[in-house]
């Protein structure tokens, strides 16, 4: 049941698009963890760079998207930059389509 809810949340998060890269935050590898306990959801996520001005919008967007999933009572989103995001966290197809360089 919990696994299915996590999958549903992951699916809902795909509506959140990184404005610069134009891909959803799940396929970009921004979502580090989704934990569920009694309907309370805790999402740990990142962004490309700490200085990115869209960071709080991404966080709020993830919260709003996850809240729409049936069975979710509350959502807490934590933004972290440890470990830092790197392109190897992206889905291979997305990385190729965006023409990203190999990870330094």
């Amino acid at each position, binding site marked *: 049941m919990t696994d299915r809810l996590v999958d549903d949340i992951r699916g809902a998060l795909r509506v959140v698009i990184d*404005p610069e890269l134009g891909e959803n935050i799940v396929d970009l590898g921004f979502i580090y963890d989704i934990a569920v306990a009694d309907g309370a959801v805790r999402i740990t996520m990142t962004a490309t760079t700490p*200085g990115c001005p869209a960071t709080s919008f991404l966080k709020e967007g993830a919260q*709003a998207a996850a809240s729409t999933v049936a069975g979710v009572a509350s959502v807490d989103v934590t933004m972290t930059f440890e470990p830092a995001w790197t392109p190897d966290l992206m889905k291979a197809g997305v990385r190729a389509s965006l023409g990203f360089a190999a990870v330094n």
Partner: protein
Amino acid sequence: MIGGSISRWTMTYFAAALTWLLVALALMVAGIGHPAADLAAPDTLVLVHVVCIGWLSIAMCGALFQFVPVLVAQPLFCERWALPALVLLTAGLVSLLAGFMALGARLPSAPWLLPLGAVLLVVGFGLVVVDLGLTAWRRPTGPARFVLVGLASLCATAAFGAVFAFALAGWAGRMGDAVLARGIPLHAVAGLGGWLTLTAMGVSYRLLSMFMLAPDVEDRKSRLTLAAGALAIAATVGGGAIAIGFQLGLNTVLSIAALFGLACAALYGRDIAAIFRSRKRRHLELNMRMAMLSFASLAATGLLGIVLVSTRTLPLYLGAFAFLVAFGWLSGLVLAKLYKIVAFLTWLETYGPVMGRAPTPRVQDLVAESRASKWFTIYYVSVWMGTLALLAAEPGAFRMAAAAMTVGVVGIVREIVRIRRLEDVASPLRLPAGAVAPHLLFAKT
């Protein structure tokens, strides 16, 4: 812009700055204030101040109100000062320009116009300096250090300018007259080199890394670049003031400053090349490709300076040199970055609040790069042609180049207006439920 907050008046600053740029271009096309003419000629003073205060400084202030909070991850010290500062700067510039026109007998004599303009500009820039300075000082690291040195240079530039204005009105005494007679190079270097160039360098470090997903330049490297630039400005302003005060020659001081300035430009080139090399995003967007042309212009400026100094012809071609600095390097970079910043801020303002609630476009969906690229190409090619025309002392060819620059800038402005109006966003994504269309001239958030 901490997280989602957007500076309300940045777009207003950009609109005012672009208006002044079009005024400057119109003056050059009309042949008023030819860059190669005597710098002290009233028409030249009008043109120079329209470009440096109206266009470059106001655009820079607007960008800094948005980006200094990002650089230091702290909110702006006082957001409410941004609009009064713009009003004061605009009124001060208009008064200053009227004063110059009165000096040139284009308007009836009114000696008070110049000091009034200077006071208004000092107060306006004072609000900007205190607001941005106190914000940057909270976390003075990396690019924020460049901004702080840039703001200090702005203070020096404004101080010299105020003395000049009072001296031209006959209200500054013998010391003021001495500063006016010999201090113009110090005013110009502090303004173009310290305030505008060092600040543009600092902001570009962050913007380039952010937009190309490159690691930030190592702190010790950027600090070395800044140190060279700061020494150039300190040598110019401090050494220059001492030389004027003790009636010594300025050439040695300016030569030392030029060496530091060249070192700064070379180190900056090294840092920017490192950002480009280490970028994770291989495809370069239009703003980056166009920024590269401004970096090439900066490099060309350095080479031109070396050639002119070594052939002892700098005084003869100072107009061409300053024109390439103002339009090839600074204006080119500002226009390229405006194109991206306006799209990014418009996206944040319109689509940020509905993210996660509705499908949203990408920032790139707000722009039409293939259409915009031709306007930028026209702009840069005509700037370089204009520089050659000034070097060849061909005023007719220069005016034609200025006319072509105007075509390029009008095209770029049109693209920016289209971005603000979301005209290039495909209709299914243009205004999702809950999204509010942005105002052309200010942020609604």
